[in-house]
């Protein structure tokens, strides 16, 4: 994927009192921040409108359906739509049928801002749900915060998301990026000393969702005494990995932990295989979770033993998970749901639970309820800090015999077997 510069932080939005609003408006002009943001503050909030029970409940969503993130964006849309169908089949939300108003932001930060601004202030949707990627959720959540709309989002776990003091923001995955690797580090800790890796290499893409995972893992493993022999960040548009692979094969690390989005994960495995260097352990952040696409790109037999962490597993025994998988397969010609679809589904579950428990679409009550309660989702239980950071942990998965198994944490593991060390490339 192409370069993903991290957005310039907008001004944090506080409670919308007139004084702060005026000050913020001046600030926005001074900073040259997109003017529509300011306009957004002037619109009336949807919860102030009269509602009748016969009218459908409209949820506004902007997704990257075209452009760089169109692949995960399309999956997120499927997740939302499956949730919508399930809810409507069971009589809707608050007794009203749910209607999704999904617009395309073309993976563009400016468009996502104008999309949510329009959804909230002109279309006056009843509720909003988040978009895909930290890149887009960063500016989009600022629009929601400014308009005091509860903003639950499926894929924005970069640390910067939660440093702005937002109170309407909720990240509906079990952990933020820096904590995704915790479950892998915990697994290493359970190994007897002689089975632990002694040296490790950490190549990572310069990506807000991959790099923090690897940085945090390096820090934690160094503390355990695993020696770092290579640590490099490569730009998002890197396509050739032979040079990285030759450096790695020269240093012969026991563990290679790569912050890999997708193409880069495939590229590095291929290049390592071309050099015939197989580390004892291979961890990649999200590339191996794209099940069929990953295994067909590197060769199914080469997936054996590859570790990754993930927010959701198809086989997890979480409430409604089996139903979600079944409905997804029925809707899309037997295809297995992607993690992005499951995250979106869980995001909608969170909002549904809060709205149901609060009994209205009062945004502030929804926010307060989410801050003090735990929600059961297909990802497992989710709860949040006052900044909207989730408090759970990810799942550690491993490719075993052409299939993905959950190996940790123990309470959700689908197998007791862990492949370690990883066999040589076939």
């Amino acid at each position, binding site marked *: 994927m*192409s370069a993903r510069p991290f957005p310039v932080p907008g001004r944090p939005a506080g409670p919308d009192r007139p004084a702060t609003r005026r000050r913020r408006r001046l600030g926005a002009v001074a900073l040259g921040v997109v003017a529509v943001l300011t306009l957004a503050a002037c619109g009336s909030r949807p919860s102030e409108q009269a509602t009748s029970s016969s009218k459908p409940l409209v949820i506004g969503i902007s997704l990257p359906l*075209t452009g760089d993130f169109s692949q995960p964006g399309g999956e997120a849309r499927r997740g939302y739509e499956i949730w919508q169908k399930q809810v409507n089949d069971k009589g809707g939300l608050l007794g009203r049928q749910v209607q999704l108003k999904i617009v395309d932001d073309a993976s563009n930060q400016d468009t996502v801002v104008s999309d949510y601004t329009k959804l909230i202030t002109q279309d006056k949707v009843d509720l909003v749900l988040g978009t895909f990627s930290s890149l887009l959720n960063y500016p989009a959540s600022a629009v929601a915060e400014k308009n005091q709309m509860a903003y639950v989002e499926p894929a924005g776990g970069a640390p910067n998301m939660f440093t702005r003091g937002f109170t309407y923001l909720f990240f509906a995955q079990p952990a933020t990026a820096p904590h995704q690797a915790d479950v892998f580090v915990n697994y290493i800790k359970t190994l007897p000393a002689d089975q632990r890796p002694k040296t490790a290499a950490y190549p990572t893409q310069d990506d807000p969702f991959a790099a923090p995972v690897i940085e945090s893992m390096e820090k934690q493993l160094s503390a355990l005494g695993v020696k770092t022999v290579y640590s*490099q960040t490569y730009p998002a*548009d890197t*396509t050739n990995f032979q040079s990285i692979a030759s*450096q790695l094969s020269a240093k012969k690390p026991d563990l290679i932990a790569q912050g890999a989005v997708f193409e880069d994960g495939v590229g590095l495995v291929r290049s390592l*295989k*071309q*050099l015939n260097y197989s580390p004892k352990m291979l961890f990649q952040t999200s590339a191996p979770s794209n099940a069929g696409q990953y295994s067909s790109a590197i060769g199914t037999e080469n997936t054996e033993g590859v570790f990754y962490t993930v927010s959701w597993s198809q086989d997890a025994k979480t409430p409604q998970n089996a139903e979600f998988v079944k409905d997804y397969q029925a809707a899309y010609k037997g295809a297995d749901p992607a993690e992005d679809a499951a995250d979106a589904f869980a995001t909608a579950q969170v909002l549904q639970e809060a709205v149901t428990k609060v009994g209205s679409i009062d945004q502030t009550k929804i926010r307060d309820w989410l801050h003090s309660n735990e929600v059961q989702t297909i990802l497992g239980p989710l709860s949040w800090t006052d900044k909207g950071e989730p408090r759970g942990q990810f799942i550690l998965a491993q490719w075993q015999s052409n299939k993905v198994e959950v190996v940790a944490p123990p309470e959700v593991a689908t197998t007791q077997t862990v492949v370690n060390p990883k066999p040589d490339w076939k």
Partner: protein
Amino acid sequence: MAQLVQALVLGILIGGVYALMASGLTLIFGVMRIINIAQGAFLILVATVTWYLWRETGIDPILASVITTPMMFGLGWVLYRTVVSRIRGQSASMSVLLTFGIALVIEGILNVTSGNKFRSATPAYFEQSFTIGSIHLPKPQVYGFLAAVVVLSGLYVILTRTWTGRAIRATSQNPSAAALVGVSATGTAALAFALGAASSGVGGSILSVLYPFFPASHYDWISRLLGIVVLGGLGSLPGAMVGALVLGLAETLTATYGSLRWSTLVFYLVIMVVLLVRPQGLFGARLREDGVAA
């Protein structure tokens, strides 16, 4: 030493493939002053078609270019005759808009027909390499490079040894004089556009083996290709080759000796320095418009 040789060899192999992909872009600009933003989408279209051919028939993806090249030649011809010819004589910015539109249409069609997911052709050799001493030459990269050399030599022969090629070059150097000696401007332009599109037949086939792709991948490729042809000089085939080699070597040398972070930056830094010294690029000819503006 081995490390240096390895980096140089890899850089040249990578650069050769880039050169092939960029050749169509520079050819089309040279003759028509059209910046074909759709060239990246052409590559992805070919890669997708190649992937299906490879999966359904088992044909080697790079050999499949025997089928995709004529296909792209035809598509290029039709596109020129029906759409592109209408903006002839208009400013270059118009061509950017039009061809960007074509790119979006191709992306949309691929999205709908083949689905929005990553694909990659994996013939038996895709993760093997030749080993000479301590130097590793990845097989797909070597085959891709060889195919690129064949196609680029072919293009060179067509452009310098055939009447058609001379007509294309004449039109690119001086359209009015070429018309005066009997070269049909429209026919030549259509031919150049078709040839440029056809070059993506081999380029896209190689891409399908070397890099995973999905419909929106063309944005990455077109930005890389534009960088190459701007560095080499828009419209110059040798320029595209040199530009591509510089990019390939910048990638491998910075990855080996510096920090990976710098690899993209180094390439664009080279472009900036070259443009400061030679605004027309390494091999580019100054256009008459540039002279007026200066």
